[in-house]
């Protein structure tokens, strides 16, 4: 998936650095997480992933991640041909550890975020985002 810096708005104040992961087509999501965590155990809590339950437009889905005290947060779109979306790195002077962006989703899938906390531990959050052709209303 193409993802340029211009298409990406990192809104969190002081979201100092954003690295776009190199393309690794078809890499298994578990492998990507293992690579990010170095195989460490991944817990839950402390990381908030906000994404719509159903995308209004699969071509531009707003998501945001927030993990107070995190050093970096990786975002994956598990069902995309190229799952890596972005990794947000927060420097020691970052005022807050949150970021927002818009991503393209090829279809209904899980969006996964993994945060590396300051103490070196890892936490994970995920949400299914449905991409539907829509049609009917009450």
């Amino acid at each position, binding site marked *: 998936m193409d993802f340029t810096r211009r298409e990406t708005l990192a809104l969190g104040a002081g979201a100092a650095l954003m690295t776009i992961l190199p393309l690794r087509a078809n890499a298994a999501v578990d492998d990507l997480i293992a690579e990010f965590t170095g195989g460490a155990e991944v817990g839950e809590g402390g990381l*908030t992933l*906000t994404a*719509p*339950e*159903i*995308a*209004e*437009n699969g071509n531009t889905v*707003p998501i945001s991640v927030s993990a107070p005290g995190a050093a970096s947060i990786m975002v994956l779109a598990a069902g995309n041909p190229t799952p890596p979306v972005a990794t947000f790195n927060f420097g020691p002077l970052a005022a807050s550890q949150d970021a*927002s962006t818009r991503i393209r989703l090829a279809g*209904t899938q899980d969006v996964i975020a993994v945060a590396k906390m300051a103490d070196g531990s890892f936490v994970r959050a995920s949400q*299914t985002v*449905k991409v*539907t*052709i*829509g*049609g*009917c*209303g*009450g």
Partner: protein
Amino acid sequence: MISRRDFLQVSMAASAMYGASGFGNWARLAAQQSLTQDQLLQFDTFGNVSLIHVTDIHAQLMPIYFREPSINIGVGGNKGAVPHITGADFRRAYGIEDGSPSHYALSAGDFESLAKGYGKVGGLDRVSTVVNAIRADRPDAILLDGGDTWHGSYTCYHTEGQDMVNAMNHLKPDAMTFHWEFTLGSDRVAEIVEGLPFAALGQNIFDAEWDEPAELFKPYKFFERGGVKVAVIGQAFPYMPIANPRWMFPEYSFGIRDENMQAMVDEVRSMGAECVVCLSHNGFDVDKKMAGKVTGIDVILSGHTHDALPEPVLVGETIIVASGSNGKFVSRVDLDIRDGRMMGFRHKLIPIFSDVIAPDPAMTAVINEQRAPYADQLAEVIGHTDSTLYRRGNFNGSWDDLICDALISEREADIAMSPGVRWGPSLLPGDPITHEDIWNVTSMSYGEAYRSEMTGEFIKVILEDVADNIFNPDPYYQQGGDMVRIGGMGYRIDVSKPQGERITEMTLLKTGEAIDPAKTYIVAGWASVNEGTEGPQIWDVVESHIRKQGTVTLDPNNSVTVVGT
């Protein structure tokens, strides 16, 4: 259902909270043929705050017939839970006598004979009488409109919602939220909202470009009532850009946004709100889930899925009130708010029996004024029906069977698709079908009837997609509404399966052959959400078909086999 045990649990949580529902007496009264307006309105004023809820009126200014669904399947945690029980099961669950007025108002079964006995329902002038009576008891009652008001009739279409705006302004609601209103287009919505003499609310109406709250709509409004600070938070239909054409209101984004709902609840509580009311167009199951996630809401006034429940449903310390559709019901909820808490409530779902409740002459005059310029067109008789015409039901309704027949014959198609909307009144056998009746079930701002080629595979993709919007076990992934109606094709659906595995045995009815995934079929449909859809308007297609039929007779539709319920 609220059981005695629930109340005990609640009273433990909230020290002195108790509730009552003003439902259950009129079955016996009706048996004595003595149903009166006073009995329908009887209510011992309670506590210090009164809420009045109307929702999903769909521009029905006049009395109508409205048949409730026979099939309304619940999935996941809502399997077998209200509102997903129908007919006799519904009546048993609430202790409703067969043949009683509540049977007729709230459930399917024996519809034709009960309709003849009890007559039409609704009419905004009758609603006005009820609202006036409640205001006589409690002059500062808060009247809240859950939306789907400026859509759904001939006059509403031709005045771009102005008829409903004029009538509702006369009824004087205190706040409103939205869904189909946006299909008037964002310019028209802005034009109306800027002139509304009441609050236009939606905490989940955002600016699509900046993903910030939209300026035109406020998240909440405060009311000081009976010495109590009441905050009403609006929740518009979350899936507007998916279920309806996004290109008509590109400036806006919606979504459930329950984290923002929680933030708004916390904000109003910190500003001193002693009572928090959510005026919602989420749909019932979504409201139930939201009530379990967001803390601090006392009352959710639920709309969108058109359910009418004679008792509120309790989730934690939140009560959820469902007030039906098409002008058929008004809910009154009295609350006892003390020390910043809801200590108790009294609720009554008031069915608007048009022949029992006297019209308010002032509102009748307003309604007549809206309709007078179109009187001839409204009254024109196009044909007659020998069958009951209704819409509600998960898989089909006879109105949609008729619309699909019209699409297949008028557009020379193999297969027809009609959207699974839940609005549109009913007609009884023997009734004339007027121009107005056709518009009541078809009117919309994107009614073009398309004719296109689709492969069998793509038809299945559509059915699977829509089915998942209804039968996904997680309510947050449900859009409300019903299954797309299919003419000319049968299928089997297992509602318990995941997306992609629910639909099997697709069969072209005219040949009896299985649908070939690779073969191309001519499909006619209407209400496409795609911009630039071309074709005649659906109401013209249906009118032409009915004229040729003269008298409409429909056979029972058995083309969908449902399993996994």
